[in-house]
């Protein structure tokens, strides 16, 4: 039995999600007394591989360095992982858009089911995952020979660094030729990433337009917070899609989540209700967000946000 973790990275550096996925893998390896390998598939990705070798609990890093994997095209990476994966007992990736894109393809190629969004590991074959937008928590047991799963970063802490696992290169090249990367528009921000931030302040439809999101900036600066949004705010074009928190957006669990002008639909709550402390600012005292908020402030956000900014 050996566990394979598929690293998430941009060739130059590992994403924080990988540290959390490796943590989930080490919980399994502690139970099974087995090794944890990390696969870094990319192009000119030696730096990311070096970082993977530093992660506590990792016993070997595999690097597949080829242009075919440079843009993380699911078709190519999945073919590689499925070929390597035959020899593993568990294959884990982060439940990010990259992991979710690629890993089900691996599972299908290996003819096994995938378990999505694992939030707890009970044993080598039994896992806990939310269903129905987190309104129910299922414990599932897999009878498949290889357990393929995506892991929710918000549910696991990052592993420590300081290790120096051996790095081996993999020469398998899979280029299916059915897909081609055209372009990417990445949102640039100096702020922490939503899924890594300790504090998040999110705006909803109540913000009224994109310009008003600037009211969150000063507060976010002072709290070193990431800025998030509800689906309604994204759909209305106030902010880009990568800011959406919720069932079908990002799942976050910061120490402090401040929801501003967000009603608290179940789909939004699904993405943030595991935050340690929740603050809601809303002019409607009946808004469902207050049912999950530790601290509720009823009033007009256009008066309250400048006050909060000044008070911090």
């Amino acid at each position, binding site marked *: 039995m050996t566990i394979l973790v598929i690293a998430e990275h941009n060739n130059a550096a590992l994403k924080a999600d990988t540290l959390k996925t490796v943590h989930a893998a080490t919980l399994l390896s502690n139970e099974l007394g087995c090794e944890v390998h990390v696969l870094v598939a990319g192009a000119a990705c030696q730096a990311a591989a070096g970082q993977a070798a530093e992660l506590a609990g990792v016993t070997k890093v595999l690097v597949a360095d080829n242009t075919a994997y440079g843009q993380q095209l699911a078709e190519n990476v999945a073919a590689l992982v499925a070929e390597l994966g035959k020899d593993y007992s568990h294959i884990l990736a982060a439940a990010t858009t990259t992991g979710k894109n690629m890993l089900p393809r691996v599972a299908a190629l290996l003819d096994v089911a995938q378990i999505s969004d694992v939030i707890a590991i009970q044993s080598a074959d039994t896992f806990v995952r939310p269903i129905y937008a987190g309104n129910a*928590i299922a414990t599932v047991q897999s009878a498949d020979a290889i357990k393929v799963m995506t892991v929710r970063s918000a549910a696991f802490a990052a592993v420590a660094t300081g290790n120096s696992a051996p790095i081996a290169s993999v020469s398998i090249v899979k280029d299916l030729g059915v897909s081609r990367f055209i372009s990417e528009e990445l949102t640039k921000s100096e702020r922490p990433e939503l899924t890594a931030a300790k504090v998040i302040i999110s705006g909803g439809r109540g913000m009224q337009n994109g310009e008003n999101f600037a009211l969150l900036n000063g507060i976010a600066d002072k709290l070193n917070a990431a800025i998030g949004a509800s689906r309604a705010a994204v759909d209305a074009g106030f902010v880009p899609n990568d800011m959406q928190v919720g069932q079908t957006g990002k799942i976050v669990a910061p120490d402090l989540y401040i929801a501003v002008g967000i009603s608290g639909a179940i789909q939004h709550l699904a993405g943030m209700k595991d935050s340690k402390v929740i603050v809601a600012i809303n002019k409607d005292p009946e808004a469902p967000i207050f049912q999950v908020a530790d601290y509720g402030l009823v009033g007009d956000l256009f008066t309250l946000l400048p006050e909060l900014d000044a008070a911090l």
Partner: protein
Amino acid sequence: MKILVPVKRVIDYNVKVRVKPDNSGVDLANVKMALNPFCEIAVEEAVRLKEAGIASEIVAVSIGNKLVQEQLRTALALGADRAIQLDTELTLDSLQVAKLLAKVVEAEQPQLIIMGKQAIDSDNNQTAQMLAALTGMGQGTFASKVVVADGKVQVTREIDGGLQTVELSLPAVVSTDLRLNEPRYASLPNIMKAKKKPLDVSPADSFGVALDAKVKTLSVKAPETRKAGVTVANVAELVSKLKDEAKVI
């Protein structure tokens, strides 16, 4: 060009589900059911491609018991031309759904398959990717824009960092995200017309796909509830609570 649209019957997104007292699952008795919202977006996109003269036929397919015919009729009312039900009482994993859909793809030979990125009951987000793997097709998941031209499809995808555009050769699988389009409502005349559109039924176990699930649900529990919080009077009180009581700032 023929488009295949797999659709799923799920609990209506407005319903707050309740877990059964014996922890065997969620209570779906007398609960409002609907077309999975992402599937609705998939049907809409197919209909728009037909209206634009790019698609010639839209086939909706659903796997489940007789009740899924209700959602297939909805898809027909929204503009699908015909429907296929693969009849089964079993609850299937995404892999089995994908395997059955692969059989339908083999028989129907669509140029494009448009489906939801995620069913809002299981929240799996797997079937499109699995179907693409089983058929050897390229995949454009979490699509917010789909452009078909010159025997290819360009898909703009919603990814964690922003947007990514990929080009796929046809046939290909696309899975829909929320921003792809805003689905129309079915008009009454179209609902009437949908009743006369063809809907074929075949037993799901007639395709040579093993339907026994490999993943067993041991229990389904309600999530931990948060304890009721307090209403603070003003910003000053909020800040002091966050500093002194919660110690998060």
